[in-house]
């Protein structure tokens, strides 16, 4: 008998130690600091802020409001997205690919930019509001709860659409035919067969929408007015309307994390209960609907797409409108706004590129390494790493922002105000998603392919670079492009961390909007949109299956 010998310390061990240390330094310690800050004031333990939060309705309501908004947004997103995915995948629709591109595009803008555009359209002095006012019709106010839900829904229903479309692609045509044979068709089939088949995806999408709505910060800030949600409250406490109160901001953060964690766990349990595997031998054939039905299908699809694209289109239009010296719109068209915006774009554009690209490179590298260790080299340390890498998933961006400020504004490593802290925040926010998608890609690759390489004499490292990585490539590149898009439109963490030197395009828009410089804001938004469109086009070319999961 031989005992299996202990292997010497391999390169992979060093890598997993290094990554673990990075996580400790940039995620665990900051999170711990948030926790500490929430219960320690001037070196003494106190629950004062938690008590204050739960005893004063003003604060407690922010959580309730966030819940109301998230639930409403989730419901509306499902109501819009599920039928849309159903119609899109079961029936022939003219301009299919354009429809899909536009749906995806509308999910890619920064939510607060959408909010801003809606204000320009439906706000007090909005285009549509004025139009109806002239007809003597007063439109309901867009500010507050309604506006937030509208903006978030138009931005988040595409997630539902994409998840459910993905599920429908795995539904075998024979299942639909069988149900028709058994006398279940039309609307009944939708509810009795299609929805249950897509339940796992619907649940996953619902969670995604819920989490995003919950954590979104820019939309309620801009359009919520008196309607306060907790990410806004954290920010207000942090910048200090009256006085800065990190302790209180931290306490709210802790409460927020606990809530999102509970939601996450509940969804996890629920989706495990509903999970099953599908694999379509024959994908669903898209049918041509009867003329009348077809009319309604097209009407529904086009209207949804039009509404969700409207803000973007209007912003582009506004960017070319003439402006006066204060940046307010006047009659006629001009490039004034771009001239005014140039001052901001000049620094914001390079910043955006540097932050976006560095984040993307770091995220991709770390995701490949972590995915490889989690899937192919299971051990305790890598399992811990796996769990740790999922933590940011449940932490709102603004909380990550505060945690980093608390940790890196003093002590041996001061990073506040630097580009580095922005990149770190972006990496933390993005990495759970890219790791998940890299893990999914790697799980599709049979381990025997790597074993074949090793048995042919290639070392493990060579196998990783020559076989594993190239096979993961297309999945990873498309994931990277999606990361890029969400990085350049990120607001909630970066707003806590930016300085004059590290302002990005998205932050510039925010600054311009809050100063009321509408023209320039529209111009920068248009530039950002252009980037997004180019990235999306790139994505479409790279990813073969066009299956987007964000």
């Amino acid at each position: 008998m031989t005992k299996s010998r202990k292997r010497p310390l391999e390169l992979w061990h060093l890598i997993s130690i290094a990554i673990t240390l990075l996580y400790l330094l940039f995620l665990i310690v900051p999170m711990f600091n948030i926790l500490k800050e929430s219960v320690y004031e001037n070196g003494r333990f106190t629950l004062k802020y938690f008590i204050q939060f739960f005893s004063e309705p003003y604060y407690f309501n922010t959580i309730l409001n966030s819940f109301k908004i998230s639930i409403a947004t989730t419901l509306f997103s499902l109501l819009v997205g599920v039928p849309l995915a159903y119609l899109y995948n079961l029936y022939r629709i003219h301009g299919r690919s354009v429809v899909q591109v536009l749906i995806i595009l509308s999910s890619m803008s920064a939510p607060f930019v959408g909010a801003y555009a809606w204000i320009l359209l439906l706000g007090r002095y909005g285009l549509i509001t004025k139009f109806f006012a002239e007809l003597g019709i007063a439109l309901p106010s867009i500010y507050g709860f309604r506006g937030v839900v509208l903006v978030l829904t138009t931005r988040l229903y595409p997630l539902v659409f994409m998840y459910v479309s993905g599920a429908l692609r795995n539904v075998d045509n024979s299942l639909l035919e069988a149900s028709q044979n058994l006398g279940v068709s039309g609307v009944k089939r939708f509810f009795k067969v299609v929805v249950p088949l897509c339940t796992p995806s619907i649940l996953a999408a619902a969670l995604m929408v819920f989490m995003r709505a919950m954590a979104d910060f820019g939309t309620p800030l801009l359009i919520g007015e008196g309607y306060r949600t907790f990410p806004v409250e954290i920010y207000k406490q942090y910048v200090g309307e009256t006085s800065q109160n990190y302790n209180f901001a931290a306490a709210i953060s802790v409460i927020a994390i606990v809530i999102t964690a509970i939601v996450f766990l509940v969804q996890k349990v629920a989706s495990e209960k509903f999970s099953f595997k599908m694999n379509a031998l024959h994908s669903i054939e898209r049918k041509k609907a009867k003329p009348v039905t077809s009319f309604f299908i097209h009407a529904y699809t086009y209207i949804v797409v039009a509404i969700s694209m409207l803000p973007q289109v209007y912003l582009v239009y506004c960017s070319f409108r003439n402006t006066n010296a204060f940046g307010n719109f006047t009659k006629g068209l001009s490039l004034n706004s771009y001239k005014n915006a140039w001052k901001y774009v000049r620094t914001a554009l390079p910043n955006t590129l540097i932050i976006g690209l560095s984040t993307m490179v770091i995220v991709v590298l770390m995701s490949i390494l972590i995915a490889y260790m989690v899937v192919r080299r299971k051990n305790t340390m890598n399992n811990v790493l796996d769990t740790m890498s999922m933590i940011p998933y449940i932490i709102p961006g603004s909380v990550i922002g505060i945690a980093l400020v608390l940790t890196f504004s003093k002590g041996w490593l001061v990073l506040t105000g630097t580009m580095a802290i922005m990149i770190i925040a972006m990496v933390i926010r993005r990495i759970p998603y890219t790791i998940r998608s890299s893990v999914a890609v790697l799980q599709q690759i049979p381990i025997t392919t790597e074993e074949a390489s090793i048995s042919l004499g290639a070392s493990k490292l060579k196998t990783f670079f020559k076989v594993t990585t190239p096979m993961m490539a297309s999945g990873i590149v498309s994931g990277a492009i999606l990361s890029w898009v969400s990085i350049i439109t990120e607001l909630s963490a970066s707003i806590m961390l930016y300085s004059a030197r590290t302002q990005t395009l998205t932050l510039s828009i925010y600054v311009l909007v809050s100063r009321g410089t509408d023209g320039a804001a529209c111009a920068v938004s248009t530039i950002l949109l252009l980037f997004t469109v180019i990235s999306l086009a790139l994505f479409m070319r790279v990813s073969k299956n066009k299956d987007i999961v964000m």
Partner: protein
Amino acid sequence: MSINIIIKNAVKRYGDVVIIPDLSLDIKKGEFFTLLGPSGCGKTTLLRMIAGFNTIEGGDFYFNETRINDLNPAKRNIGMVFQNYAVFPHMTVRGNVAFGLKNRKMSKEEIKKRTDEFLELMKIKEYENRLPERLSGGQQQRVALARALAVHPDVLLMDEPLSNLDAKLRVEMREVIKEIQNKIGITTVYVTHDQEEAMAISDRIAVMDKGVIQQIGTPKVLYHRPANLFVATFIGKTNVLDGKIYEENGEKGVMLENAKFPMKNLNDLAVDGLNVKLSIRPEEFVICEHGCGSLKGIVEDSVFLGLNTQYFVRLESGEKVQITRESSIEDTIEKNSEVEISVKTDKINVFSEDGQRALIG
């Protein structure tokens, strides 16, 4: 440079679950050796222990005199062929075949020459610049085989290489594999759960069940003289019947219902009155309408298969047996007719009641 493989007392555990308790094997130089057994019996596990992809919890593995337990899989000079082909999807056919050669110190010309040689041998030269996704399953498996053999491995390991192919291709490819193996003379360990495939291709077969080798032998021996009831039923078709040993006037035999069949080859374990299991293959029965045997039965069904006809007969005891008889034009045993049956006593196998031990020889 073919080698022989010796495995002594191999143990494999996953956590607390023992998959292979204690397994020993001796595979000869240049032999086509097959691990055969039902799904989940540990064939792949054992093969991957030889390849170095599984940890070894106990025992010794040798290639010739070299103990390989702790040898890096990349250094074992093994060619492997997998069930899912495992060709590299991002490399051309040529790139796949040349991959292993590039890991060795070989000149460009040598690599090209060797690659060409194996592309031609496996008849895939015409696809050399294609990516695998544009090849059929059979062609992909040819690429995998060419890739594995091009490095001149000491051992060729194959894990169910044909099970993803359709029936016709499976037969074709198994001939290709056998022919190439013969030509190169490489020691080959082949894994399959398909007994027919194993019989067709192997020099010797190890029949495994639950991580334990039940019998090692040539296809002929396994078929005719299985070591236990498991092997008898796993290899080929057989009827298992309850019987009893009798001993009369110094003559031994088996008693089936009330019919006595004297046998010359029973061993000492077969003592008078012992309950036994009989394994009688369909062709080891003799069936006729009258005058050929002492067992009686009724034909419930028959299937004409050209060369043979299969009869499904219910014996008087109620047991159902399948009997094969060469077809003939005046074959007229009708359904529901009474028949007489005898057995070819020199061919049948007798096992202890628990099926563990053979009572022949």
